C-alpha cells in the first residue's frame, strides 16, 4: 500500500452547494405560481439583466447537462429526450445541450419533475452561433418571444486590440442592454427595478471574481480541489451568479479553500501528478476523474471550468490572468441603470475568457492554457475532443500541438459533453491507462466503477 502524502477532508461547502442548486431549480418550477417572471436563456446571457424583475431563470446548458446525467442512471429515459428532438429534425451534429433541452420541451417534461416550466420569454446573448439559433428554435416551438443580444467579445490580449474598438464594443452592448430592458418591460407589463438590477450586476461581478479566486487557490501543492468537485461548484455561478445566496456561498467557499491551502488539506492524498483538461467533460461519465485518482492524479482545472463562471482580468505586466477586480474593490459607485449597464458590459467583455475562446481561438487561447500549465504547475493534459460543442472544441488540435511542442504529455479522447452515444468508455479508459504509463505513473489502488 502506497503511503498517503497529504491529509484530506470532505468539503464543508458541498452540501450547501447542492442545496442552492436544488432551490434554484425548485424556484423555476414554482415561479409562475408565485407570480414571478420566468425566462429562459444561456449561461452567458448577461444573466444579471433580468434582475430588475422578481424573476427566475432556467439556464439552458446546465439543464441540458442535467438531462445527460440520466444516460448513466436511466438510459432509456435519456433516449426519450434526444429522440424527441431528433425526430423533430434536430440532427446529431448540433449542440447536445440544445437537443436535450428541446427534447424536454417537446416531451413537456421537466427533468426535475413535472411538466416543462411555462417560460415567459427567452433572452440570449449571441456569444455562440448555436446558442442564438437554439432559442430562436425554442421560440418557434413554444411561441414565446425571444430577444437576442449580439455580443462581440474583446479580442485576446495578445492581439493588441485598440481601446477605440473596445469602447465601441462596450457601447454596442450597453445600447442593447437598454433596448433589452425596454423590451422585457413590454413583454411582462412590469416595471424594471433599477435598485435590484444594480445589486444583481454587482453580485454577478463578485460571484465570478470569487470563483476565479477559488481557482487561483488551486495553484497550491497539494491542490485543495479536484476538477470533478469544481464542476459541481462552478455551476452555481453559471445558473445564479446575480443572486445574494450565491455570492455568499462563494465567499464562504473561498474562505474554506484558502483554509485548506493553509493546512495542506488535499483533494487527492497522493497527488502524484497534476493535469488540466480541455472542453466540457462528458457529464454522464465523470468516472474518468475517479480513474485518474487511482493513479494519484489530480485534475486542477480547465480553461472551461475556470472560465465559464470566472471573472479573469489580464495582468499586462506579468502576461497572466488574475481574478477580476470588482467595482466594489475598486471603489466604483454604481447608482443608475446606465452605470450598471456599463459595468455589466465592461465586466463581460473584459473578464470573460470562455466566451472569448468560443469566438476567437488561436494564439490567445493557447497563451491562456500555457499560463495555466505554468501557474498551476501542470504535468500533463487531457483534451476531450468534444463532438457536441462547436464553440469549446474550436482550435483544440492547435492547443494539443502547442502542448506537445512544449514537451507536456498530452492525451486526447473523442466524446460528447451531453450525448453518450459518441463516447466510448472502455476505449477512453484504455487510453487513460496508457497515458498514465506514459507519465510514469502506477495505479495505487483498484478502480471501482460507480464509487
Amino acid at each position, binding site marked *: 500500500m502506497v503511503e498517503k502524502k497529504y491529509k484530506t477532508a470532505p468539503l464543508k461547502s458541498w452540501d450547501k452547494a447542492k442545496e442552492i442548486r436544488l432551490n434554484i431549480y425548485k424556484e423555476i418550477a414554482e415561479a409562475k405560481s408565485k407570480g414571478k417572471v420566468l425566462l429562459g436563456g444561456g449561461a452567458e446571457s448577461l444573466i444579471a439583466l433580468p434582475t430588475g424583475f422578481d424573476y427566475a431563470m432556467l439556464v439552458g446548458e446546465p439543464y441540458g447537462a442535467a438531462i445527460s446525467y440520466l444516460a448513466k442512471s436511466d438510459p432509456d429515459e435519456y433516449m426519450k429526450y434526444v429522440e424527441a428532438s431528433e425526430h423533430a429534425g434536430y440532427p446529431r451534429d448540433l449542440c447536445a445541450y440544445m437537443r436535450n433541452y428541446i427534447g424536454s420541451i417537446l416531451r413537456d417534461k421537466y427533468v426535475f419533475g413535472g411538466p416543462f416550466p411555462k417560460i415567459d420569454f427567452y433572452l440570449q446573448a449571441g456569444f455562440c452561433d448555436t446558442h442564438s439559433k437554439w432559442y430562436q428554435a425554442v421560440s418557434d416551438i413554444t411561441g414565446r418571444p425571444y430577444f437576442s443580444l449580439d455580443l462581440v467579445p474583446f479580442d485576446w490580449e495578445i492581439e493588441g486590440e485598440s481601446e477605440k474598438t473596445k469602447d465601441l464594443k462596450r457601447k454596442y452592448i450597453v445600447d442593447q442592454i437598454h433596448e433589452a430592458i425596454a423590451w422585457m418591460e413590454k413583454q411582462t407589463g412590469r416595471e424594471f427595478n433599477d435598485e435590484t438590477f444594480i445589486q444583481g450586476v454587482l453580485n454577478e461581478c463578485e460571484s465570478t471574481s470569487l470563483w476565479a479566486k477559488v481557482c487561483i487557490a488551486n495553484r497550491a501543492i497539494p491542490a485543495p480541489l479536484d476538477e470533478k468537485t469544481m464542476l459541481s461548484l462552478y455551476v452555481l455561478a453559471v445558473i445564479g451568479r446575480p443572486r445574494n445566496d450565491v455570492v455568499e456561498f462563494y465567499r464562504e467557499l473561498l474562505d474554506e479553500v484558502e483554509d485548506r491551502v493553509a493546512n495542506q488539506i488535499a483533494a487527492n492524498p497522493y497527488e502524484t501528478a497534476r493535469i488540466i483538461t480541455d472542453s466540457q467533460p462528458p457529464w454522464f461519465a465523470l468516472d474518468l476523474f475517479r480513474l485518474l485518482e487511482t493513479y494519484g492524479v489530480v485534475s486542477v482545472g480547465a480553461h472551461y471550468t475556470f472560465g465559464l463562471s470566472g471573472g479573469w482580468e489580464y495582468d499586462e505586466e506579468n502576461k497572466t490572468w488574475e481574478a477580476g477586480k470588482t467595482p466594489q474593490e475598486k471603489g466604483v459607485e454604481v447608482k443608475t441603470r446606465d452605470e450598471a449597464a456599463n459595468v455589466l458590459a465592461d465586466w463581460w467583455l473584459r473578464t470573460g475568457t470562455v466566451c472569448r475562446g468560443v469566438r476567437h481561438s488561436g494564439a490567445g487561447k493557447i497563451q491562456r492554457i500555457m499560463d495555466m500549465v505554468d501557474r498551476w504547475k501542470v504535468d500533463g493534459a487531457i483534451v476531450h475532443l468534444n463532438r457536441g460543442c462547436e464553440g469549446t472544441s474550436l482550435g483544440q488540435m492547435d492547443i494539443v500541438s502547442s502542448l506537445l511542442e512544449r514537451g507536456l504529455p498530452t492525451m486526447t479522447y473523442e466524446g460528447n459533453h451531453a450525448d453518450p452515444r459518441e463516447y466510448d468508455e472502455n476505449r477512453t479508459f*484504455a487510453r487513460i491507462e496508457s497515458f498514465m504509463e506514459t507519465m510514469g505513473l502506477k495505479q495505487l489502488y483498484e478502480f471501482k466503477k460507480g464509487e
Partner: protein
Amino acid sequence: MITAGIDLGATYSKVVILDDGKVVGKGISKTTLEPEESVEKALNAALQEAKIDKGQVERTGVTGSGRRAIKDADVVATDVTADARGAYHLDKEVKTVIDVGGEDARAVKVGENGKVINSAVNDKCAAGAGAFVEAMSRAMQLSLEEFAEASLKSTQEIPINAQCAIFAESEVVSLISDETPREDICRAVHDGIADRITSMAKRVLVEEKVGLMGGAVMNKGLVESIREGLGLDPIILPDPLFVSALGIALMAADQED
C-alpha cells in the same frame, strides 16, 4: 529465467517465450470470443516451439487490448509501454514506434532505456487500422497479399475518404463502377489509411529512427504509403507481430521479486 509475454490483441493473440532474455518460442492464434482459449492456443504453440513445459515458465506478462481477461499475470501493462520496451530491445536507435494492429493504430515516442515519452492512439473509427484494409480487400475480392501487390503497381494517386470505413467502402464500390484501375484503388485505400496513421503519429512529434510494427505492416503497399506520408524511411522491426509480446516478456523478466 523463463518468461512468457502475452499480447492479447483484438485480432490475434501472440505469445513469446524468453529464456534468459533470448527468444526461444513464438505462438499465434486468432482471438475469438473466448480470449483465454485463444491465449492458451498461442501459448501452447510457443511452448512447443521452445520445447518447454508450461510449469517451467517462471513469470508471465500480459498486454494488449484484452489484457484484463487474463488473470494472475505477474506484470500487466498497456500496449504503449510494451511496444516501446520491445522496440528498444530490437533496435536501440528507434525513437518512434508506429504500431498498426487490427483495430488500433498507435504511435509511441521512445526515450532512454525504452521509456515512453509520449503516445497517440487512433480515434474511434477503425479506418486507421488493419481491419479497414481487410474490409477493403474483401470489397475488391482480392486476398490481402494480392491487394498489397496491386497497390505497388499503381501509377496514379486517387484521393479517398478514409475518415470512415463505411463511407470509404461505398467510395471503393463507386470507383470500381467507374472502371478505375484496380491497382489505383488499392493504392488509394493504403494512402487513405496511411494519411490517418501519419497524422496521428505526427501528434507525438515523429523523430527518426522510426520503427514499424503490428500485423498490418506486413502489407508492403501500406508500408509504402506510410513511408510517403511520413516523408521518412521507417524500418520494419523484426517479427513485427510479436514486438509487443516481446516487450511484455522482457518487462516480466525485469520485474524485481
